[in-house]
């Protein structure tokens, strides 16, 4: 029993050292995918038919194919293209962490863009009209009226997507990245103790996601104006004026 605990302890210590790699992939692809999704959302409502077509095609391709294939295609497939293999880009494309981030950015941007698109359609028309009626246009309308509502509507689904992304980072281990899952497999290759190692790895993912969930839930609460004001004491209704 004691040997058991010592083993789990030392494995956990090894796995914890891989947490930064997992978090790095998550952070980079999370930020890039969100930024790209914002652009794609704008394209989805653009006047230009070409922009709308690009957005639809992007979503179709990256949502319709497995992420692991996208990772393989970028990491193994692009190495077969001479101008990448022998060009300036090779420094980036031979790095498995970069390839994972790129694949995840493309794939998850398609999902996040769909979340944003749905939220945009759900922003009450009246709020936007009230903005236009008082003379707001373009960026001001977006920033002052549309975005605040859009973010509040999108946040629950967006949080969900981020949690999914955390788990997807484990696919990086298939192209030699030593993230939490990668290190776990390495340890198993030496020790053959599958159950303990995978349990320890799973516990770390749980911990990361628990932290993220708490963070995102706190953000959601903060933005919920109805809860942000703790039961205001409502003054008596002033009687009709005449």
């Amino acid at each position: 029993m004691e040997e058991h605990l010592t083993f789990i302890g030392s494995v956990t210590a090894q796995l914890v050292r891989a947490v930064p790699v997992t978090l790095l992939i998550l952070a980079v692809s999370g930020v890039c995918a969100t930024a790209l999704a914002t652009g794609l959302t704008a394209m989805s409502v653009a006047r230009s038919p070409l922009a709308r077509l690009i957005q639809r095609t992007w979503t179709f391709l990256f949502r319709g194919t497995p992420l692991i294939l996208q990772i393989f295609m970028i990491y193994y497939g692009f190495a077969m293209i001479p101008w990448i293999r022998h060009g300036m880009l090779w420094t980036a494309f031979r790095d498995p962490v970069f390839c994972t981030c790129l694949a995840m950015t493309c794939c998850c941007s398609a999902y996040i863009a769909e979340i944003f698109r749905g939220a945009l359609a759900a922003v009450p028309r009246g709020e936007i009209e009230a903005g236009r009626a008082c003379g707001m246009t373009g960026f001001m309308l977006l920033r002052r009226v549309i975005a605040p509502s859009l973010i509040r509507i999108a946040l629950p689904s967006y949080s969900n997507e981020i949690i999914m992304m955390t788990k997807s980072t484990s696919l990086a281990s298939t192209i030699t990245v030593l993230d939490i899952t990668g290190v776990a497999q390495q340890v198993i290759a030496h020790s053959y103790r599958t159950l303990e190692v995978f349990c320890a790895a799973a516990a770390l993912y749980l911990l990361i996601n628990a932290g993220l969930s708490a963070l995102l839930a706190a953000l959601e609460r903060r933005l919920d104006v109805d809860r942000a004001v703790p039961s205001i004491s409502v003054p008596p209704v002033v009687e009709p004026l005449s």
Partner: protein
Amino acid sequence: MTPPSPTVLTATNIRKSFGDREVLAGISLEAREGEVISILGGSGSGKSTFLRCLNLLEVPDEGQIAIGDVQAPLARNRHGRLEVSDGRAAARLRTQTAMVFQGFNLWPHLTVLQNVMEAPLRVHRRDRDEVLATARTLLERVGMAGFHAAYPKRLSGGQQQRVAIARALATNPKLVLFDEPTSALDPERVREVLALMRSLAEEGRTMIVVTHEMAFARDVSSRVVHLMNGRVESSGPPAQMFGPDASPAFRAFLSPAAL
């Protein structure tokens, strides 16, 4: 004799179709400063669409609109359809007006005070202290002085509409458009909103009101316009419209309410 007050709004021959359905079949309307014009008509008579054309929330298929002496930037595109030719100019035109909606349309993420301050502060870029002072005065005026920090969701419909009216007045617009402001309210709330609108009329605000409130149209407005099938069926001062010489169509429109 006092000279006639200046014209605030000129709308000429406004036409609008949605698909095959012609909603506005050529409506003209002129509003002088201080006038309160009630637009009445059955549902589907085009009154809301007409009102929404006046601040270009709806682009008419035909016609011209001017607020004061500023012409609405409408021009034909290469397909011959009328469209807003200059978005900024359209926005500038809208800053001269304000609109009160049936569904209030307050911004839910802003407090009552922020809702009222938003347009003068961000769109008109007026001085913050000045805007704040005006907003306070207006909120007191509409009986919402104690609610500065409240969010719209917390308020009753009548309270929301009073805030929306304060928001509309915050920029000191030349013309206030009311799109069925009491239709979403229960009878008691209707009273408080109408009382407020009456007081605005009395202080000389130029208002165009699409409404189903006959008593308001009769007692408060300076002119009543009856729309039917996308046309002005009859119009005139309330004494004439509600008197014995009223057009038969308008009387027929009124009669269910009179019963």
